[in-house]
């Protein structure tokens, strides 16, 4: 979204050489996309309609253009599909609820601590995703602070635990994707001219109304970007469910993972990947339409 205007600056240079420059600049990116996205995608599409060679060893498949693969893949794993989307949605909503106030505070109320706070938001990135998730397991675990606090206040019984539950998976994803939500929202809040809020106050809007009518609508590009950056990877995530979940919290990512690497059932894994991609694309298209961010500059 933030890159949308990048191309126009070079386009104004007249002359034939000038006309070619934007395309030349695009070239490395296009090549990259072709090599590491388009070609694998074609390969994946091709794999998804294969069937096992009769009497062949495991992992040997031939192309039979069997579209039924998709139907089978989906019907066998519809529970994991819906779970993926529900978990991703919950994680996105939670992340939004935590990130928006955080981003707002950093953008408008942090004064000289702004940069330190921003670094703190990104700081978790300095360790690996896997490590962070394992750490999260410790935090939620039997010896961890969360359980002991909850038990002290008798909010949960002595034999209830959080690890290996849906809650652990969802909170794990929320935590892992928090910076992806916070940074775009911060960026769009930061861009808002504070005089617009003053103008709103000048025009009889109190603080809350100013937020509802001016600040929030103007931060929508950040909210949309943040929710997409959280929801998309969350829907396809399998690390959180693997480390923090149990067999009943398996997400579609876990299924694809096990089909590819354990059962070597490439066609089903490929068909699942495509179905996931299509589902996400459809959801996002509907979402962006409804959010109406294309109207915002």
């Amino acid at each position, binding site marked *: 979204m933030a890159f949308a205007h990048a191309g126009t600056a070079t386009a104004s240079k007249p002359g034939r050489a000038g006309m070619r420059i934007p395309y030349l600049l695009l070239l490395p990116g296009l090549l990259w996309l072709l090599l590491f996205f388009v070609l694998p995608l074609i390969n994946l599409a091709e794999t998804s309609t294969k069937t096992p060679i009769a009497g062949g060893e495991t992992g040997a498949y031939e192309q039979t253009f069997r579209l039924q693969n998709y139907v089978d893949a989906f019907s066998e794993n519809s529970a994991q599909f819906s779970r993926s989307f529900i978990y991703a949605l919950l994680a996105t909503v939670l992340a939004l609820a935590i990130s928006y106030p955080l981003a707002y505070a950093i953008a408008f109320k942090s004064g000289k601590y702004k940069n330190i706070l921003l670094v703190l938001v990104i700081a978790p990135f300095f360790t690996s995703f896997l490590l962070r998730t394992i750490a999260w397991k410790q935090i939620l675990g039997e010896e961890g602070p969360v359980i002991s606090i909850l038990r002290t206040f008798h909010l949960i019984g002595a034999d209830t635990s959080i690890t290996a539950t849906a809650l652990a998976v969802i909170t794990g994803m929320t935590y892992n994707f928090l910076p992806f939500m916070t940074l775009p929202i911060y960026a769009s809040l930061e861009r808002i*001219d504070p*005089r*617009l809020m*003053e*103008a*709103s*106050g*000048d*025009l*009889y*809007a*109190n603080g809350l*109304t100013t937020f509802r*009518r*001016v600040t929030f*609508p*103007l931060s929508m590009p950040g909210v949309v970007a943040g929710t997409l950056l959280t929801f998309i990877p969350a829907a396809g995530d399998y690390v959180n469910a693997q480390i923090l979940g149990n067999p009943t919290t398996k997400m579609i990512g876990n299924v694809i993972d096990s089909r590819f690497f354990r059962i070597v059932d490439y066609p089903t894994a490929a068909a699942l990947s495509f179905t996931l991609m299509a589902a996400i694309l459809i959801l996002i298209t509907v979402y962006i339409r409804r959010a109406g961010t294309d*109207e*915002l*500059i």
Partner: protein
Amino acid sequence: MANHPDAAKTGDLKLSSITKSFGDFLAVDDLDLVIPKGSFFALLGPSGCGKTTTLRMIAGLEEPTSGKIYLGDTDLTDTKSYRRPVNTVFQNYALFPHLTIFENVAFGLRRRGIKEVKESVEKVLALVELAHLRDRKPTQLSGGQQQRIAVARAIVNRPALLLLDEPLGALDLKLRRQMQIELKWIQTEVGITFVHVTHDQEEAMTMADTIAVMNEGRIEQLGSPADLYENPKTAFVANFLGQSNFIKGTVESTSGADQFVNLQGTRIAIPAARNSSTHKSLLVGIRPEKFRIHNVGDATTGNKLEGGVVTDISFVGVSTQYQVEMPWKQELMIFEQNDGGAPNLRKGDAVTLSWEPHFTFALDGDEDVKSGLAGVDGE
């Protein structure tokens, strides 16, 4: 629109010993000011003198460090900005980019839950002649159009007071002149008190009934444009509004309404009312266009200075500007209308200068002659 409903309940705006400091920097320094209801009032001053800060305190966007703000008899000092019957046209317009022009203008009305939004908005859009742009977004408007929408968005609320912070600063000269006339017309039309901030002296003079000249957080002088121009009380005001020749002199005697001053050896008369100093040593100010230029020996009236030599002549269409060097080695500037009244002169000619005594003003001899000059170049 002339009979504004709220205006009846309000009155003059009074700032009483308003001070604003940022840290240990005094942006506005113990300012007292009365802005009469219904007037077009200009706050004029160089960059950084505290104009915007003053305006923001009136709007409620900035809290005074000390002092009080009254509108009529109501104390507004602690009233939140969204509760004040005051609207602002911001320096950069601050139109809401996510709303249409119509919704921008309707914003204040909707917040107050006023009925007949459509009617009022259409009326004010017609007033600024932009009704056809109601469905556009602010970014799709030219600078001048945005400026008019900013005015419309404010006056549609019929505030008791409209604050304008250099609303024409971003426009080119031609458009600015046109908008000055339009704003003045709108003000007469709606009858709201306008407080107009500018650092353009010409703008202030053409638009305002009353001008307050501000300098370093204080009001230097307040008065009608003509009064400020003809009778400045400080060198700053004299220099900030137009150009002046300052000549050092000493008071010789006073008789009734007249004072006689020794001006570098020549005795001249000035009206005592035009001398804002009580000191003996004076700075006598004469605007360049008040001088008349003569060949030596020609008959003159009023005050007279002899022994000048023309050192430079430049023709600027409606007038001719002369530089004349006086016997005490001071260069004076003289503007003469090109109406055939002035003699035909060339560089090096000896001349006599004359002017009417009531066109003279006098300041304290220790005033800084250069004070306020940056403001003139600033434009």
